[in-house]
């Protein structure tokens, strides 16, 4: 498997993520249980959506203590590609792999809809030319309201770390932020679900360029080696 999809208790978009990478994009993908080590040879990791550990306490707050998270940390430290989608984004924020936090939608309700998004010129992989100026992707979350303190926010904006912005804003996210990356450019997180917009029966195919942008380095770089 080249792309590992981490399965926590309560993950529920793990199958979707695996299906989109394996059957639609065509890269070997597999699910990895949160108590197991990250397999050798994995070149990218997706932390999928769902309600890990029921989202009790805070979304992603318990998942960060799962055994696999130390492997994920070292994988990311060595430049491994990591994408957190929805609950996966929340987990990456809780575990410190990405800055900021996600709190309850300002409307206080769950929102499931096809969301218009503005693509930011973030880096050579993720920009409005490679993707499109505007995308539509499904969102489905109750806690997608991105928050960060002024310092973090200033840094994010100054370093072009914002990937996607809501247009219009469905949840009260600060600066309309829907997705970000880390400064090094190997850890990505977003509330929208690109894996739900990749097949002809989906509302659109706008998830494909997003997943392609994330998975692009896989064909170019050698596998990242895990430390013992």
């Amino acid at each position, binding site marked *: 498997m080249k792309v590992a999809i981490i399965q926590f*208790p309560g993950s*529920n*978009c793990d199958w*979707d993520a695996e*299906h*989109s990478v394996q059957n639609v994009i065509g890269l070997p993908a597999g699910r990895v249980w949160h108590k197991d080590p990250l397999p050798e040879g994995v070149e990218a990791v997706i932390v999928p959506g769902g*309600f890990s550990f*029921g989202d009790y306490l805070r979304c992603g707050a318990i998942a960060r203590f799962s055994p696999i998270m130390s492997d994920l940390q070292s994988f990311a430290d060595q430049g491994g590609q990591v994408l957190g989608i929805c609950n996966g984004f929340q987990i990456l924020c809780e575990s410190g792999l990405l800055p900021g936090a996600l709190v309850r939608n300002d409307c206080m309700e*769950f929102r499931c809809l096809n969301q218009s998004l503005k693509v930011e010129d973030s880096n050579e992989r993720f920009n409005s030319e490679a993707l499109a100026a505007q995308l539509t992707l499904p969102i489905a979350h109750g806690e997608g309201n991105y928050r960060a303190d002024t310092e973090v926010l200033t840094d994010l904006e100054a370093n072009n770390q914002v990937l996607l912005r809501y247009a219009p804003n469905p949840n009260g996210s600060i600066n309309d932020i829907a997705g970000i990356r880390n400064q090094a450019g190997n850890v990505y997180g977003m509330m929208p679900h690109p894996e739900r917009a990749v097949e002809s029966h*989906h509302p659109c195919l706008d998830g494909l360029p997003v997943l392609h942008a994330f998975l692009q380095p896989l064909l170019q770089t050698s596998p990242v080696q895990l430390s013992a």
Partner: protein
Amino acid sequence: METTAAPLPPNPDPCLNVEITPELVAQHGLLPEEYERILGILGRTPNLTELGIFSVMWSEHCAYKNTRKLLKLFPTEKKDKDAIGQVLVKAGDENAGVIDVGEGWGVAFKIESHNHPSAIEPFEGAATGVGGIVRDIFTMGARPVLLTNSLRFGSLESSQVKRLFRGVVSGISHYGNCLGIPNMGGDVYFDDCYEGNPLVNALCAGILRHEEIQKGAATGVGNPVYYVGPGTGRDGLGGASFASRELTEESAEDRPAVQKGDPFMEKLLLEACLEMMSIPGLVVGIQDMGAAGLTCSTCETASRGDSGIEIDLDLVPQRETGMNSYEIMLSESQERMLVIVAKGRERELEEVFEKWDLHAAHIGEVKEGNRMVVRQKGVVVADLPAKSLTDEAPIYDQPATEPAHLAMAREWKVDSIPELGQEAVEGALLGLLTHPTIASKRWIWKQYDHMVMSGCTVEPGSDAGVVKLSIAGINKYLAIANDCNNRFCYLDPYTGAQIAFVECMRNLACSGARALAVTDNLNFGNPNKPEAYHMLKECVKGLADACAHFDVPVVGGNVSLYNEHGEGAIDPTPVVSMVGLIDHPDRVTRSGVKDSGLDLILLGGLPDELGGSYYLQSAFNKKEGTCPKVDLDAEMNLQNLLIGQIEEGRICAAHDLSEGGLLVCLAEMLFDAHGIGASVSLPDLGSSGRLDTLLFGESQARAIIAVKPEKCDAVIQAAKNLGVSAHAMGKTDDSSQLKVEVAGTSVINSDVSGLKNAWESAIPKHMEIA
């Protein structure tokens, strides 16, 4: 009947060693003659735990004692043995019915009510309703692939109703979203008759290989019995018998009878059970602990397996201390299952549950004989013949009297309604589009994750929700629709139930789907009242006759009686849900028109009946009139035409006429795409000679389709061949206006976006937090 049994020893909990008085029997919802029957079966006095067990197993919820005879009227198999959709597991045999969908796959589906709990505690009541029906589906070995709900509330003018509505929707959203099963919306009606007694019917469908179908039978003497899932607490005590009583002002004090749900726990249980069931030969039998919890699951599995069963309550995981046998046996704590495992393979089961961090406790064994024996602290606390609990419940044939209002409805004359002038058409249309029953339900389903599992193909809001069965790796689509217009059932129960059936099936046909089978949820008042029983009986007859006519069997469902509150019973509400199959992506059809320049064809003729319509409700606040006629042959021809023409690739959009009639149907078809309008011309007022009846009457067997101009002649010819009236009445355009003229005179020329805005904002406006 068993007449053995010496008296049982005293219960370890002294408070259970009480004399069984007539008052105690009555408190358990048992009639004196029912208690006599229990004495006859046992040949001794039951102890309190045993009385509790009888009371839940013989409640209407578990035993269908008032409806079992009527339910036998439903066809449970297909007459045509060559048709697709053969029944693999029949209604009543297992936790849910299963139908064949081809290529070795089957679909398990069922609807179930959680009305009474939702009336008392809407969030938990609705949430656990979803949990219960999902367990019924994965117990069969199926991976759940969709949810829908059929909901009924009082008027949204009432703040109590708003509270119930908000609570129910957020309970469903909370539970279903966490499980990650797409919720395709469903049908929602608002009517004063549901004030104080909302209806919450939840449906789940799942997919499985034929060879994966699991049985709920305890077989193989010596096989271990396992309890899996979280510990048992005192919540939901006696919920099944609670659901078999009328709601009263004091019902709020029954809150302990409402269960508390934990969707995360259910998700773990779902995954662990499917993983366990994928190990060949490991699971002998499995049953969820739903209504009547441990009681129902043990005696039903034993009864189905023609076996005895013995369990030890000291081994049951408990989350409260000091629980006695009565409490443990009657608890309806959620997210628990009973599993009978092949002896010697216990470790394989335990490993799966250890992985998912769930309890798997060996609590008993399958035994010879037919008795259900329960021990606690080394003492036998219940010893009952299992089959007597499941099969010997009393069955009643209640007296039925036709309510007086039915005769009035039959004799009703439309002349009592003032005629509609053309200048009032737009106002009447807006009145209908903003009635919460007809208005957009987006406020509801944007709170439901309908896209998870990557299968959502037609989102909620069209005639049927459609999901691709991607997870099975097959290129087939499952369509789901629910229907039941209570107004028609109130005015004419037989015909009203048939309308629920044909409208549901028509919704599938408009979506390109062939109906496979029905699951029904019979929501009625107190069956001991002759008038209420008449309504129940007639609805069941009507539904059964329609099922037989279309050769669409009933594969399961639920009965919820005693839906009464304050001023009387709810209207009869036999909710009909159907699963249909679409086997090619090109055939998936929506109700919304996407393009201008399409021909609009009215199928089935000009509407000519106004009785029972929503127009009478929104314009005159009346629930009266003669229910529209149902012609099952005409309906079948229409549906064959729709499916046939969709399969020929000739139909771009299709929407059936239902609540609100022709003009609402036409308007709704224009709401999907920006800038689309339509210009329609109707030749005359039709046989009724009335504008209100033509535009807003709810005559059956009618639909509007949009077709490309070059296909129009072929469609009209095909309609002629099937004997369906087809009238090319106009075209879609890019004017953004809805224009209709009747006999050359314009009756409406309205901006579509204004109509859409009114339709979309109606429910949100009611639900704005002041």
